[in-house]
């Protein structure tokens, strides 16, 4: 049976009919020296980042602070483990959810005894995940210009691990830090080719809302805290 596509042909017909007369372009993007429209170069107009890795990192750190992302530099995996242990003790965590990954899996053996891991695999129990104290994931990229963490359903254990538990911990390496969203998209494109994961998400700080009197409150539905543990 062919799928029900509704009024596909009628709508496309109306669209084509409507577009017979061209609309003026009122704000033409200026042309760059090479004659190309500047849409191809819109990066130039966005907030500047700086070319070196130090500048990128400085901006990411600054934005993390204003976003209330807890950014912590770790010299090695032992320091990452120690950081997680400290958080677990402070928060009296019982369970931490995570996905299988090069970094995440390596951390499990060093978890404190009272912290039990829930390793997500296909068909996990939603209630169980909801009850976890924290979620531990890797990520694809970090974005300096916006202070974002880019996760995908492939890199970060599916769609909700990075957003359902109240505390999200990301383990990443400094070389995952890219300049801006343009670079992030280019990098994702070369990494996944045509087989993009079914979700790409730029996470910018812990969950937040301003819906009540436009006053900022963290942890509206997603994590109240976001910790980025950064390896060299």
């Amino acid at each position, binding site marked *: 049976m062919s799928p029900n*596509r*509704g009024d596909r042909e*009628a*709508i*496309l017909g*109306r*669209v*084509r009919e*409507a*577009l017979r*007369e061209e*609309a003026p*372009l*009122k*704000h033409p*993007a200026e042309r760059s020296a090479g004659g190309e429209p*500047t*849409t191809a170069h*819109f990066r*130039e*107009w*966005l*907030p500047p980042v700086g070319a070196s890795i130090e500048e990128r990192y400085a901006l990411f750190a600054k*934005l993390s602070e204003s976003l209330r992302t807890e950014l912590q530099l770790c010299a090695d995996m032992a320091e990452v483990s120690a950081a997680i242990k400290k958080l677990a003790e402070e928060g009296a965590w019982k369970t931490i959810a995570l996905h299988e990954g090069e970094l995440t899996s390596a951390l499990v053996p060093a978890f404190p005894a009272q912290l039990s891991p829930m390793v*997500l*695999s*296909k068909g996990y129990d939603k209630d169980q995940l909801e009850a976890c104290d924290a979620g531990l994931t890797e990520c694809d990229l970090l974005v300096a*210009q*916006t*202070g*974002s963490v880019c996760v995908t*359903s492939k890199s970060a254990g*599916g*769609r909700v691990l990075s*957003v*359902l538990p109240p505390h999200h911990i990301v383990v990443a390496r400094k070389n995952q830090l890219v300049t801006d969203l343009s670079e992030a*998209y*280019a990098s994702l*494109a070369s990494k996944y080719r045509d087989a*993009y*994961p*079914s979700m*790409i*998400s*730029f*996470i*910018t700080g812990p*969950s937040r*809302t*301003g*819906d*009540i*009197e*436009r*006053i900022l*409150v963290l*942890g*509206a*539905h*997603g994590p109240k805290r976001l910790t980025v543990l950064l390896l060299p």
Partner: protein
Amino acid sequence: MSITAEPPRQQFQSDANRTSTDAPRRAAVRRALSNYQTARDRTGATFTDWKSARASAATIKHEAVNHLDRYLEEFEKKFSARGGKVFWASDSKQARDYILHLAKEKNVRSIVKSKAMTGEEIHLNQALLEEGYGVVESDLGEYIQQLKGEPPYHFVFPCMHLRRDEISDLFQRELGTEKTDSPEELTMIARRVLRRAYVEADMGISGGNFIVADTGMISITENEGNARLTVGLPKIHVALIGIEKVVPCLADLALFLPMLATAGTGQHLTGYNSMYGGPRQPGEIDGPDEFHVVFLDNHRTRLLADPEQRDALHCIRCGACLNVCPIFKNIGGHTYGTTYQGPIGSVITPHFRGLEDWKHLSGASSLCGACTETCPVGIDIHHHLLHNRRNAATQKPAPGEQFLWRAFSFLMKRPALYRLATKFAPLGGMLHPLVQGSPLDPVASWTATREFPAAPAGSFRARFRAHTAAKSAALKKGGVQ
């Protein structure tokens, strides 16, 4: 309310009269928006060149909207290849019926919804509730409005008009919680209630901010994470999106996401910007088994057919034009009686719902242009209000008004007659007898709240003539040259 028995114009007039004199509400709205303005100015200033960024955004949307057929088909092809389903709905009913049918077919019981103005547009919640489905709005502001039984006040900030004590009272009444004046505690109350909704729902419904053609993705912008959960947990997902929301390439979002955030809330980027390319893919551990995208026309093609105003379809619904609009600030969102409030709503609603019934919105503007100045995609918003006024007057002139303007132009195109008339009475006095005592009487309308300027001794032309005469007399007398 968006559905009222009263004709839209009367409803607007009477609500505007009431709200524009409601000093406490106006103050609350202004206070809420002043935080926004500070943040927006600060973030906007970090752009190397906002104007050029805006021109780029306008150019990209122009390309997308003017080749809409091609991009929609491209999206459909890519999205379907990954197992997504696309349904094309001509109008509200067709979209509602599709979703209702789907819910029935899949034995859905409860539904969690993240913010979708298209849902408001087609009155989706009402239809689902009538059929016995539980529907919960998960965006905090939308949830509050749902509890209150009111449509959103602002399409980005749904409950910006409410003070915390009002929300606390509402929660106390509806949820039985304790009184609190802390926005944080109020947010946590909603968080507790809603987390169950995500886990239990078998269907998630969302809107979408962008339809990405080249990769076949839907992009959703939010701050709370509720959309992430809505699209992530239930086993069926439906995204209801207006057909105009297209961008050609995924990489274009590198421009649009920061601009939407800056204009919308003053953030560099909102909390979660997520692109979804279909249902769960092989090898992935979660995500819906079915992902439906419903393309909604609902008269968007009517607006598309008007090249003069086609750029109104470039709108990315950031809400900035509402936030700077002095009319919005003084009459508030509900007064409009529309799904899309504020300047952009006044432009597009007549196209969506009929010019004759909705032209008054285009009239209710001082045409100050603050909306156009702030719009991140460069829509000529306030000029389109003028275009709507012109189209309305051409389509169906208002008899009294047309007579007045004919009389006005009769006088003004006869300089001699105009001069003669100004000799005896100032301008207002000349035309006033035409309308005295009628609802069009400008003097009565003006003087109810404002003083009229005192009439001067003589007109400018009379004085200028005297001045020129005196000067040439002086010249003659002095014998200069």
